[in-house]
């Protein structure tokens, strides 16, 4: 136990924890982004995907994953805060003049991007997971049309025991959310900061666990840059497409879409 304590107390130990939790979050954002992009395949696809996440998996697994992710975020933040406080203490008197020689802008602003990202995560969970942001409670009929739509698969409503399975209209929730310009602006800003956070963090986590050398540093830095931009564009394109009118709400949950109609005629 004492060795575990010394690991967690040491600067390197906390950096390793930050790297490992960072890895979980890096993989999560990619999965989340790929999931989100299904909105371009039609309302029925993204709704079916959301249905799968919520009801096909046992709810204990869903909560297990949620708690695991929250614990990872908590450890990541705890390590960042304690290390930052230690780092501040290590230089009580600063320089009158200090030049940065090679450190990148994103590497020097991890705390700034991290804090804004935390604020974003809180808003995002309240906005789309808890759906409790005032004026954006997407389940209430008074705010928007009722968000429950039939679950659609291969262009047909899914039936169970003779009744149509109903699901939440995630498509319309996202569209309605992003039609508010400042919400979209905040999402785009936050994913931009996520891009910055990742361009340093993705490569840095390999350094923290000791899996990097000069050659691989250059390669990983490049991969991190690409990864950051892919994640940024993948996330930001949804609010942008909504504001541009490319993505539209579909109160039928995809039953009325053209593709669904085509499949429907084929199947008949």
């Amino acid at each position: 136990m004492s060795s575990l304590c010394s690991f967690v107390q040491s600067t390197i130990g906390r950096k390793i924890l930050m790297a490992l939790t960072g890895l979980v979050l890096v993989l999560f954002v990619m999965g989340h982004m790929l999931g989100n992009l299904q909105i371009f395949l039609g309302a029925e696809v993204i709704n079916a995907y959301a249905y799968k996440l919520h009801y096909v998996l046992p709810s204990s697994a869903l909560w297990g994953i949620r708690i695991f992710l929250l614990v990872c975020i908590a450890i990541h933040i705890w390590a960042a805060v304690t290390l930052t406080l230690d780092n501040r203490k290590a230089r009580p008197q600063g320089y009158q003049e200090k030049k940065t020689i090679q450190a990148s802008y994103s590497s020097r602003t991890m705390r700034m991007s991290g804090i804004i990202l935390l604020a974003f995560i809180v808003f995002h969970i309240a906005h789309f997971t808890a759906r409790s942001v005032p004026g954006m409670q997407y389940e209430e009929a008074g705010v928007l049309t009722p968000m429950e739509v039939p679950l659609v698969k291969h262009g047909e409503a899914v039936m169970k025991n003779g009744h149509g399975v109903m699901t939440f209209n995630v498509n319309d929730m996202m569209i309605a959310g992003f039609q508010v310009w400042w919400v979209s602006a905040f999402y785009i800003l936050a994913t931009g900061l996520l891009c910055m956070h990742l361009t340093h963090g993705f490569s840095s986590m390999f350094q923290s666990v000791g899996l990097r050398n000069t050659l691989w540093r250059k390669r990983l830095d490049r991969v991190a840059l690409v990864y950051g931009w892919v994640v940024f564009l993948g996330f930001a394109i949804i609010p942008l497409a909504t504001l541009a009118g490319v993505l539209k709400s579909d109160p039928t949950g995809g039953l009325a879409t053209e593709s669904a109609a085509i499949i429907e005629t084929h199947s008949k």
Partner: protein
Amino acid sequence: MEKTMNLTLRVWRQKNRLSVGQFETYQLSDVSEDSSFLEMLDILSEQLVADGHEPVAFDHDCREGICGMCSMTINGQPHGPENGTTACQLHMRHFHDGQTITIEPWRAKPFPVIKDLVVDRSPLDKIIQAGGFITARAGSAVDANAMPIAKQTADYAMDAAACIGCGACVAACPNASAMLFTSAKVAHMNSLPQGQPEKHRRTLAMVTTMDGEGFGGCTNIGECEASCPKNIPLDMIAHLNRDYALAQLKNFFEPVA
């Protein structure tokens, strides 16, 4: 025809550990561009003594970049603007006539200022004392080729051993972290067969001492590497992180220290 320059120097002056220091501004004229930075400070000190003032105290010894004594932040960069050199190897030709040069001591909590530009770097010695040694047979020297070491390994250990312990990495780091120094020492000894018996114990002890002395942590931004007069790469820090994780793992199952 040698060129000379007139300079404005802003130098940190501090009487002793306890007193409050401040910047003093001095004018220095006709400095040869061929003089080294420390020679320029010598000229300043002569001028100060002639005027009845205290000369500027600064650390120096070999003046050829191998002892690691000189330690000053010149215009915001430890050891000045040149890459891979110590302050004593820096020449005035890298400055221009009429320039203002700001000279500060290393700034870190573990490095208190003793006087002017001189800081106490003994915390680095404590890190060395914690694990910078090997078990060697006492008595006559072993045959040089008794223990064959691959060229690659020897070169790598030599690159790590190039560290002169000047503390520029600490001075350059926004967190005043001594990771580059500690990692160079750990990588040097842990990569050679002679260093294996104490490998895990050394890694744990040196990191614990480093943290205990009040140095900050690493944020992997690379300012240390860019300031290092010996160009010690960040690879060494990755090596230390790796060895530390292994040592902790080993220590968890079978205590090594």
